[in-house]
C-alpha cells in the first residue's frame, strides 16, 4: 500500500500475546491401568489384539489397525531392543537440557515399540554416540526411585 499520507517510517507494531489453556486429559481405564502397573508393580503391560494377535505396548484400548477392542493384558520383558533413536543436542524451551536420547524400544514379548528416554549413554561425542547406537543395542527398563504413574516413571539404559 503506497499512500502519500502514510509516512515511510511508520513503526511496525508487535502485540504480545500468550496461548495458555489448561486441560485435564482423561487417560481412561486402559492407560490408567498401564500407569498403575508401572507405579504399583513396576512392570510394563501390553494389551493383545484378538484379531492380529499383536501385543500392543503401551497398552491400548483398541487396535488401530484392526479397529477392534483389545482382549487381554500381558506383561512384557524388562529388556528389549532399541529400534530407532535420536540424540537431541540443541536446547529448546520447555524441553530438558541437551543432550539427551529419545528412542523407541521393542520390549521382549511385545509386537510394537514404546517411546522413552535412553539414559546412561556417553554423550561426550555426539557423533560417536550416534554411531554406536545404530546397532540396535539391547536395553533394560529402569524405574525411577519415585514413581507417580506417568510415562516418565521409567527410562531405558544400555545393557
Amino acid at each position, binding site marked *: 500500500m503506497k499512500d502519500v499520507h502514510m509516512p515511510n517510517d511508520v513503526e511496525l507494531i508487535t502485540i504480545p500475546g500468550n496461548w495458555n489453556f489448561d486441560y485435564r486429559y482423561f487417560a481412561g481405564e486402559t492407560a490408567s491401568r498401564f500407569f498403575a502397573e508401572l507405579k504399583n508393580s513396576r512392570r510394563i503391560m501390553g494389551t493383545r489384539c484378538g484379531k492380529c494377535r499383536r501385543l500392543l505396548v503401551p497398552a491400548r484400548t483398541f487396535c488401530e489397525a484392526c479397529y477392534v477392542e483389545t482382549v487381554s493384558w500381558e506383561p512384557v520383558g524388562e529388556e528389549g531392543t532399541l529400534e530407532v533413536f535420536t540424540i537431541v543436542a540443541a536446547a529448546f524451551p520447555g524441553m530438558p537440557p541437551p543432550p539427551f536420547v529419545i528412542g523407541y524400544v521393542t520390549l521382549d514379548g511385545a509386537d510394537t515399540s514404546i517411546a522413552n528416554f535412553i539414559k546412561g549413554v556417553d554423550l561426550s561425542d555426539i557423533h560417536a554416540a*550416534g554411531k554406536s547406537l545404530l546397532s540396535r543395542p539391547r536395553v533394560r527398563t529402569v524405574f525411577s526411585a519415585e514413581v507417580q504413574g506417568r510415562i516418565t516413571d521409567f527410562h531405558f539404559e544400555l545393557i
Partner: protein
Amino acid sequence: MSRRAAVVGVGQTQYRRRHSGRNTAELVREAVTAALTDAQMDLDAIGLVVGGVAPDALAGIDHVDMGSIARPGIPYFRVNTGGATGSSAFLAGLTWIAAGRCDAVLVVAVERMGHAVTAPKVFNSIFDPIYERDISLSTLSMVALRATMMIQKYGYTLEQWAHLAARNSELSLLNDTLESPRRFSAGDVLSSGVISWPIHKLEIGPVSEGACAMVIAAENRVGSRPAAWIRGASGLSDTYEMGSRISRAEGALVDVVTLRRCAAQAYRDAGVVDPAKEVDMVEIHAACASSESMGYAPLGICAPADGPRFLDSIVDGTARIAVNPSAGAQAANPVSATAMIRIAECALQIRGRAGRRQVDGIRLAVATGQGGATQFSTAVVLGAEPS
C-alpha cells in the same frame, strides 16, 4: 477421476521468516489476486474456497483463516492435516469439482508461524498427552528418529544429506518466491551443529511465513487457459503410533507405506506404469534432506535399496528426473502452505511459468504432502495433457 480438472492459476507471496509489514488477510489477498489473475478469472467464478491452516497455535490466533481466507458469499471450509494441510486442501477442492458441486475452486493456504515465539513448544504439544508428550518429542525428533533407521536400513550417511542440503541451497537462489535464499556448502552443513542427531542445523527448512493460492477448474472451464491437468490425486492416513510402524508387514517406518500406496493409486489414475521412466519432475514435501530422500522409493523413482545412489545422482546432476527444482521445503517451509506449494511448483513447471527455476520439458510431475507423525500422505500427478 470422474471429471477432468486442471490447475489454471497459481499465486504466491514471497516466503520469509516474518511478514511484519502485513496482516494475514493482506498476505492472503496478494496470493489470491495473483492466482485469479494467472487464471484469468474473477472471484465470482469461484464456487468454493478451501482454506488450509495447520495448528492454530502457530499463528496464535484461533481460526485465523476466517478473517483472511473465507470470502463472503462463497461457500467456504477449512482443512487441517498438519504438514499435509496444503495438499489436503487441494484434494478437498478437487473432490468438490469431481462431485459436480461447482466448476471452479480456489484453494488457499496461509502460514503465520512467525507469530509463535516458541514454535518448538507448539510442536511438542501435538503429541499424545497420555503416553508420549512427556518424552519431549518434537517434529524434528520425529524426522531424526526416521533418519537413524534410514542409516541402519539403507546405509545413508550424514555426508550425503549434507550434500543434498547444499545442492538444494544452490537451487534456492533461482526461486524468486524466496526473499532471502541461503547458499551453503556440504561442509557448512556438517559444521552447522547437530540439532537432533543425525540432523544438522542447516539441513532443516527455516521458519517461514507466506500464502499460496491455486485455482482448480473443471474441464468445461479450462478453455484456452494454460493448464496443468490433474491426472491423479490420492491421500492416505496411517496410525499415529510410530512404535507400531517400525517393522510391520506392509513396510518399515521409513518405507512410508501411505505415500507408497497413494502414489501408486495416483499413478494408476494417471496411466503411469513406470514412474522412474515416465515422470519428469517430483516435488517432495520434506523439511529436511533426510526426509526428502525417504520419499524417493515410495514414489517409485528408485528402488528402496538404491536410495543412497539415487541421492548421489541428484547431487551430481545425473538423475533423469528433476527433483525439487524449487529447492523444496528446505528452502521455505510455511507449515500450512508447504504441501500446496509443492503442487503449485509442479503446475508452474508444466505451464512453463516457473521463471528462473523453469526446467525444460516438464510434461508429467508428481507432488507429495506429508503431515502428522508422517502419517498423512498425499500424491498428486499433474500433466501437460488431460490424459
